[in-house]
């Protein structure tokens, strides 16, 4: 426990940790000290002069954001002199700031507006011409309007410290200082847009959102990003049933202020012109749109006929549909179709993972553990590319807790910048690389080991044995791709108990029905069975859909409710942001097919299905309340898990790709780094 000091703020006696910053002490006690440049996650800047406070026996006003609390201090945050100083600061900030609030994207949610409204003077003494510089476009997603900038350096610090990219700086000096990008007139970076979110004014604006709407015209829907497995919360701004913005201004998710380009911008696939709007039936004249009732009847009849004749089914589920959908699909396959042939594209060896850890307690790391652990070891994964939020957590750990990062990878990774030790290995040499770090790791207080698909089967067991042998508390994260790989596994979308794996289904010459829900298995593979009736549920005409007999248009994650489980096993709720006319959620489609077939698989409402999941899936017995407000639920282990047939391979997505969805996101394809060429050939 840190030493406590007594001080007085605005006449109130307050106890605070010695050395805590005045601005924080005041905030914790409900006293607002206004500030622009101060941000609790990043280094101190003391640039904006907005947080000036009066301290007794100190002749001049002091900045609250860098002055530590000390015994006996008497602080005033609302005296005449402080109020005058704030007025003066705001008057200065407005000398060159254009008063274009009526057309500024930030208008209505601008910190400068709020501050001037609350603390500012009604008029300005400056009559000089404002210094004007034209607006610049730095990338498809980032625009910079220099005159609006108040030089708080938040964007520079967020990019340097938070993202580890360092693409922004400050050029020139004095009154003509302005933020500069890393390549003279353009940015080459993660294109994450963190700089835009963190900008207190409208200096940095988003290419996809600018001049689209006013903030108060949107509804704000907090949901979970549908792209990678990290499970970041993204708040979607919705107007007229269209998503116009993604951000995390309320910072209420597990990801706090973090979002990458996918979470912030890659919602645009929802309105892609090639989006399927009605069921499509393959005919001699190509695909013809048909009604839902006809389509459901065709599918149900086919399923019933094949089932009656004792035919062979193959069911391929998704790693980005909800837990409820995965659960229902697994139930449909096993009980409705009476087949064990169900699988999904597995991207991490969760079976071996849970098996190797069975019997141990407290060994599954959460996303918060990466921020709090003394050390993080990354094995065989390019974390910043594939799991940007986990990488962000590890970086924040170094920044805030002096945490240590170790990397064992086949190539250069961003984690090297901060790593205590980086080991380069050939593919397959990961274990030897880890072993070479034994002494260093042993000396750590505790450790989180994060590993990619290079670590599976026996190698995975050996890695866990290595962790055991260190004699310190070790937690693990088995990396998987896509928003609900973990959920697909937990819900039983796997060929356990002797079913055919995904590859075996595709290779089986006598398959009668292949039912693909939200997956693209035929992207790089052939279907051996020539007579199989192929049913595909998807958003787009993917390679797999193009081989289907019937395609059913599906709703995306932003268009439905339900739950998803992230890479660390944290279960979170989706919220429906927009309604769609043609497509239906996969759950509804499955429910309707079941009904048409006369099967009783229960009610297909997400809440009802989740109630069933709570009862029957180990570890998911969390309350609705916990699901709604967090913290994210995590699950205990469940004994031995049998190995599964089939291959396990990560799709190796980068920051700028998201499987088959990539090509339907204009934004992901518009940035110069797309799809990940900035890092292609480097790292793993």
């Amino acid at each position, binding site marked *: 426990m840190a030493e406590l000091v007594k001080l007085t703020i605005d006449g109130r006696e307050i106890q605070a940790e010695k050395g805590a910053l005045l601005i924080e002490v005041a905030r914790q006690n409900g006293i607002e000290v206004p500030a622009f440049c101060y941000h609790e996650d990043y280094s101190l800047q003391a640039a904006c002069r907005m947080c000036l406070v009066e301290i007794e026996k100190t002749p001049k006003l002091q900045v609250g954001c860098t002055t530590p609390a000390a015994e006996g201090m008497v602080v005033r945050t609302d005296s005449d002199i402080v109020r005058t100083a704030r007025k003066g600061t705001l008057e200065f900030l407005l000398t060159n700031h254009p008063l274009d609030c009526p057309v500024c994207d930030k208008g209505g949610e601008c910190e400068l507006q709020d501050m001037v409204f609350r603390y500012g003077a009604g008029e300005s003494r400056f009559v000089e011409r404002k210094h004007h510089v034209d607006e610049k476009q730095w990338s498809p997603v980032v625009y910079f309007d220099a005159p609006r900038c108040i030089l708080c350096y938040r964007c520079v610090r967020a990019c340097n410290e938070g993202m580890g990219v*360092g*693409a922004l*700086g*400050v*050029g020139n000096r004095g009154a003509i200082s302005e933020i*500069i990008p*890393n390549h003279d007139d353009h940015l080459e970076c993660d294109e994450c847009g963190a700089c835009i979110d963190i900008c207190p004014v409208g200096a940095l604006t988003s290419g996809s959102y600018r001049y689209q709407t006013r903030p108060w015209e949107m509804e704000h829907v907090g949901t979970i990003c549908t792209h990678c497995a990290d499970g970041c919360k993204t708040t979607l701004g919705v107007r007229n049933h269209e998503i116009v913005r993604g951000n995390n201004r309320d910072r209420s998710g597990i990801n706090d202020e973090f979002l990458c380009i996918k979470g912030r911008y890659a919602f645009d696939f929802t309105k892609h012109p090639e989006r399927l709007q009605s069921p499509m039936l393959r005919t001699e004249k190509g695909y013809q749109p048909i009604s839902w009732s006809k389509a459901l009847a065709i599918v149900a009849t086919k399923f019933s006929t094949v089932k009656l004749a004792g035919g062979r089914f193959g069911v391929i589920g998704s790693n980005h549909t909800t837990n409820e959908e995965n659960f229902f699909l697994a139930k449909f396959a096993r009980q409705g179709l009476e087949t064990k042939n169900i699988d999904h594209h597995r991207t991490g060896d969760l079976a071996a993972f849970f098996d190797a850890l069975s019997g141990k307690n407290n060994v599954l790391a959460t996303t918060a553990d990466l921020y709090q652990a003394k050390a993080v070891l990354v094995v065989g994964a390019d974390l910043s590319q594939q799991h940007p939020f986990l990488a962000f957590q590890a970086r924040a750990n170094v920044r805030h807790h002096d945490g240590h990062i170790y990397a064992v990878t086949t190539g250069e990774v961003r984690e090297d910048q901060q790593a205590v030790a980086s080991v380069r290995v050939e593919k397959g040499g990961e274990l030897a690389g880890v072993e070479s770090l034994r002494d260093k790791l042993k000396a750590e207080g505790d450790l989180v080991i994060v590993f990619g698909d290079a670590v599976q089967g026996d190698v995975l067991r050996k890695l866990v044995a290595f962790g055991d042998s260190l004699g310190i508390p070790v937690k693990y994260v088995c990396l998987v791709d896509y928003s609900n790989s973990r959920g697909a596994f937990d819900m039983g979308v796997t060929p356990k108990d002797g079913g055919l794996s995904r590859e075996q289904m595709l290779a089986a010459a006598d398959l009668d029905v292949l039912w693909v829900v939200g997956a693209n298995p035929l992207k790089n593979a052939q279907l051996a069975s020539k007579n199989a009736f192929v049913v595909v549920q998807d958003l787009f005409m993917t390679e797999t859909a193009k081989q289907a007999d019937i395609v059913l248009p599906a709703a995306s994650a932003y268009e439905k409710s339900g739950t998803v489980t992230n890479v660390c096993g944290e279960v979170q709720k989706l919220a429906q942001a927009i309604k769609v006319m043609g497509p239906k959620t996969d759950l509804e489609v499955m429910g309707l097919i079941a009904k048409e077939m006369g099967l009783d698989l229960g009610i297909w409402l997400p809440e009802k299905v989740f109630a069933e999941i709570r009862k029957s899936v180990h570890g998911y017995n969390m309350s609705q309340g916990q699901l709604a407000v967090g913290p994210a639920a995590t699950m205990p282990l469940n004994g031995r898990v049998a190995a599964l047939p089939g291959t396990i391979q990560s799709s190796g997505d980068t920051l700028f790709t998201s499987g088959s969805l990539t090509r339907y996101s204009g934004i992901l394809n518009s940035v110069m780094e797309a799809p990940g060429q900035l890092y292609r050939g480097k790292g793993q």
Partner: protein
Amino acid sequence: MTFSPQLEQRFAKMLTRYPEGRTRSAVIPMLIYAQDEVGAITRDVIEEVAKRCKVTPVQVDEVVGYYSMLHRKPQGKFHVQVCTNISCLLVGGEELYEHAKKKLGVGHKETTADGQFSLEEVECMGACSWAPAVEINYDFHHHVTPEKLDQLIDGLRKAH
């Protein structure tokens, strides 16, 4: 890019002069020496200094933008810097600068057509006791009068 063997040697030594992990301290001296050899701070110089000092290019860019003695474009062979800050101003610094403009026929941060001279109005260079002061390249000239400046410029012109 590489520099002359002498400069390479100087840079190598420079990097050892700071405590471990503080190679960024070498950014400014490296930029100045590189500017002298290359003639200006080009994009290549920025990238190279960043690499050697283990900082990002944009961090070097910030430094170049901040300091007026670092130039992105080549200066004249003789870079005439006239101080017009308070001490020099009081004893004729401004008149001296106006005179220099007329004499050279160029303005602030401009270079003569033959590339021989460039002119810059600078802030205090710490020579207040001998104001008004002029710096030509790295040489200081004290108590400069318009006549003395003419002699200086004519002398340099003749010698080269």
